[in-house]
């Protein structure tokens, strides 16, 4: 069916007309509010307070969500919102990595706020259409799209009975439908979920951009925490924005010269050094697959091990040489010369509903190769690409899917579940066919896939209650915390990274802190105080990207020459100064690098308080599964026996000679668990929190977020 016929069947539910307005120094100063239950569309002012305290992006998302929900609100209540906002720097074209959208909602997995940072053109085009944020509340009766025409000044809610649900088709259909010509397609961005959003709690959102060189719609993912599930629960099929006329000065920056200067300087750096540093332009984040394997950090068999002899079968060069067909690097927003976006074109699908089709697969990114592949013991690049494709089009978070599958494989191999329970799926490590079928079942809402799609936390409960599994063992090996599945790094030998995962706001995702190399390989943060300082500075610094519509990669995935002589090389001081400069260049403010951290600290602490308000956010919620801190099983211990025995001698003065492995596991575990608790003490202290993880009143006062409703949340715990 062609898109014109589909369009004919659209039913207009509401239309809103607005003045186009003008962006001033990075802000449109208003947000678009859409209530799907009431078919109500409104313009809301963005206040000076919001800009001062919350900056934009994730900060705006948190503020709107805070005001929309109560402590009782569940993810599938109509008052839950999905907020998309880019931030004041979002949409500048001169500096790499400045087109991100930040998505915020209450997560079905954690019951807490989830925030996700995603590429594609939606956030910038939304802003250029006149809106700092899009705030969606309520639920539609039937599938709808929200269409924003940023040149005409209209917003429409339309019922869409005929369009596909899966993203790789829906993205194409809507781009075709709303573009006036081939030339106009670059002005469209679509947000979609997929069929798995209807049946699992790990649904994601795809954000599109039109790749003019390939003449194809590309997908970038807001992956973590089940945002796509909330999207489908609201019966949203898609969001579409159309804006024609992107230029480098649309943000009306206070001083464009600062932005040009920083941007061109970084382009030159990337041109000069990327090929000899991280090869982002060649293979993107997948460049570290073999590096992680070499350092025993690549999760293998549900994080039991950190390397595997077959890892070379999924090394980055395999993808470069056989699958990644583009001759040219490409980014997910204009001006990103780091260009980590990759795609395998005309990849032939071998299973499922799209069997035989030639598709464009975005990726693989490191997380996908590690999670879908190594962690499940599947060292097959074609499985990785195919499951990557299906995860994206079905709208499933590849990280949660990988970690979930690894968990069920270990449960299967240890006899907790069997073929009877899995409906015939022999989910042993390395069984790519079974893993692929599990994925298809998630999209169909059938069989064991439907169970696995509820996430590890709910599966643990089910396995204990229904199948008599040992709760302690499942707690040890189920790699989730706060309800969110771990991302794909093995943190066992890095205490700082255990904290980097465990002491996050949204759950164990590495975007807050990735300290493994600093800690374990370079030994730059040996003491608890050093680690606590790193677990203060880096999460705060990295939070700032999400307030401003920025990507993290151009900060430290390209290293300037000046870093060789820098005082604190891990911070990449020259690039921090670039961010100060472009922030001041856009907003006309005069922040320095300390104020930058303060901006983040405010929002970070607000999010912590939000978690407390939702009944979590305390010390007990920051506990981690032991698999992330040390060897749980005899097999694990003995695989790295020399290392662990040596640690017992050197760190504990304990002689392992002649001792049973079980005994040694116990001694090592006691030590490592104590280390983690000491780390938590030090980090809470550094962050200005009580020993129970509650932000102190003086911390909230210092940050200027001691609003009465915030203080009310923390008071009972102080």
């Amino acid at each position, binding site marked *: 069916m062609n898109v014109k016929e589909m369009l004919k069947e659209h039913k207009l539910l509401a239309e809103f007309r607005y003045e186009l307005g003008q962006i001033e120094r990075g802000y449109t100063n208003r947000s678009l509010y859409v209530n799907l239950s009431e078919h109500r569309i409104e313009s809301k002012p963005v206040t000076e307070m919001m800009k001062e305290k919350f900056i934009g992006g994730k900060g705006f998302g948190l503020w709107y969500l805070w005001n929309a929900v109560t402590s009782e609100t569940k993810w599938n209540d109509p008052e839950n919102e999905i907020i998309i906002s880019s931030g004041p720097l979002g949409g500048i074209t001169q500096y790499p990595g400045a087109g991100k959208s930040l998505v915020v909602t209450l997560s079905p997995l954690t019951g807490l706020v989830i925030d996700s940072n995603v590429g594609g053109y939606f956030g910038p085009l939304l802003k250029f259409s006149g809106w700092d944020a899009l705030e969606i509340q309520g639920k539609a009766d039937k599938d709808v799209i929200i269409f924003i025409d940023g040149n005409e000044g209209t917003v429409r809610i339309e019922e869409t009975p005929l369009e596909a649900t899966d993203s790789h088709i829906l993205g194409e259909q809507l781009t075709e439908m709303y573009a006036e010509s081939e030339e106009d397609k670059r002005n469209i961005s679509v947000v979609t979920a997929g069929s798995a959003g209807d049946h699992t709690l790990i649904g994601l959102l795809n954000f599109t951009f039109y790749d003019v060189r390939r003449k194809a719609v590309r997908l970038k993912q807001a992956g973590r925490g089940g945002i796509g599930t909330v999207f489908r629960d609201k019966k949203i099929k898609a969001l579409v924005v159309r804006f024609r006329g992107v230029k*480098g000065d649309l943000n009306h920056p206070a001083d464009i010269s600062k932005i*040009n200067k920083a*941007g061109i300087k970084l*382009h030159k750096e990337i041109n000069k050094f990327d090929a000899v540093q991280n090869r982002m332009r060649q293979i993107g984040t997948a460049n570290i697959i073999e590096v992680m394997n070499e350092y025993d950090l690549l999760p293998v068999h549900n994080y039991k091990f950190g390397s595997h002899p077959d890892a070379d079968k999924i090394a980055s060069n395999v993808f470069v040489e056989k699958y990644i067909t583009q001759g040219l690097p490409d980014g997910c927003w204009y*001006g990103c*010369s780091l260009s980590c976006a990759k795609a395998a074109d005309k990849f032939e699908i071998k299973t499922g509903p799209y069997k035989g089709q030639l598709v464009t697969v975005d990726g693989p990114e490191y997380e996908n190769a590690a999670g879908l592949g190594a962690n499940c013991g599947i060292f097959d690049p074609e499985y990785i690409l195919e499951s990557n494709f299906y995860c994206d089009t079905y709208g499933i978070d590849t990280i949660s899917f990988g970690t979930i599958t690894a968990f069920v494989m270990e449960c299967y191999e240890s006899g907790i579940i069997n073929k009877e329970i899995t409906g015939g799926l022999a989910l042993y490590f390395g069984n790519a066919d079974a893993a692929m079928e599990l994925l298809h079942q998630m999209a169909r809402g059938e069989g064991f896939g439907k169970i696995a799609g509820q996430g590890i936390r709910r599966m643990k409960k089910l396995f204990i209650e229904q199948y008599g599994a040992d709760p302690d063992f499942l707690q040890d090996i189920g790699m989730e915390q706060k309800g969110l599945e771990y991302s794909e790094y093995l943190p066992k030998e890095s205490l700082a990274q255990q904290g980097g995962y465990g002491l996050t706001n949204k759950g164990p995702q590495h975007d807050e802190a990735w300290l493994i190399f600093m800690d374990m390989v370079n030994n730059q943060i040996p003491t608890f105080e050093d680690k606590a300082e790193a677990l203060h500075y880096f999460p705060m610094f990295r939070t700032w990207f999400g307030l401003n519509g920025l990507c993290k990669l151009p900060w430290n995935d390209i290293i300037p020459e000046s870093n060789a002589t820098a005082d604190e090389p891990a911070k990449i001081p020259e690039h921090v100064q670039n961010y100060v400069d472009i922030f001041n260049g856009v907003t006309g403010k005069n922040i320095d690098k300390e104020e930058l951290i303060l901006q983040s600290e405010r929002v970070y602490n607000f999010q912590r308080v939000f978690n407390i308000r939702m009944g979590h956010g305390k010390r007990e919620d920051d506990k981690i599964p032991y698999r992330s801190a040390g060897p749980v099983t005899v097999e694990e211990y003995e695989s790295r026996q020399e290392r662990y025995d040596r640690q017992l001698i050197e760190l504990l003065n304990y002689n392992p000679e002649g001792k049973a492995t079980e005994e040694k596991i116990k001694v090592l575990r006691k030590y490592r668990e104590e280390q983690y608790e000491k780390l938590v003490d030090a980090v809470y202290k550094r962050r200005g929190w009580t020993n129970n993880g509650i932000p102190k009143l003086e911390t909230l006062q210092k940050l200027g977020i001691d609003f009465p409703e915030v203080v009310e949340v923390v008071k009972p715990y102080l």
Partner: protein
Amino acid sequence: MKRLGKREELCIGCNQCEEACSKTFFKESLKEKSCIQIGNNAKGGYAIQVCNQCGVCIDICPIEALYRDKNGVVRVKKDICVGCFMCVGFCPEEAMRQHDDYIEPFKCIACGLCAKNCPSGAIFIEDVPVGEIEAFGETATAGEI
């Protein structure tokens, strides 16, 4: 195919080419707004920095705002250019130009007006076979991925 050729040893550093260029392009006499730039080389002579039409920038631009016209000259489509300046950062000759007064880059289009103003014959319009221009591109992209 047409492009601006150069013989640096003949340059006397009079800067008349820069003036001719900025006046033609921007109606202003300002070195920073000239597509051709005269500087100093390591040997104490003059260096002439100008586009050799190698076309590396065409591939750098992800939105096809750069193209080679029928005369072989690389040109900027200002209507679709979004001003990211990646072409400026990646030009092997550092000859793609940018000025803060403008939101798009600018470059030599081999119009030849500067050559007409050159008193020493250091710059001139030359005809170069297609293959040779592309060879420039290959040299320039060595090491690029």
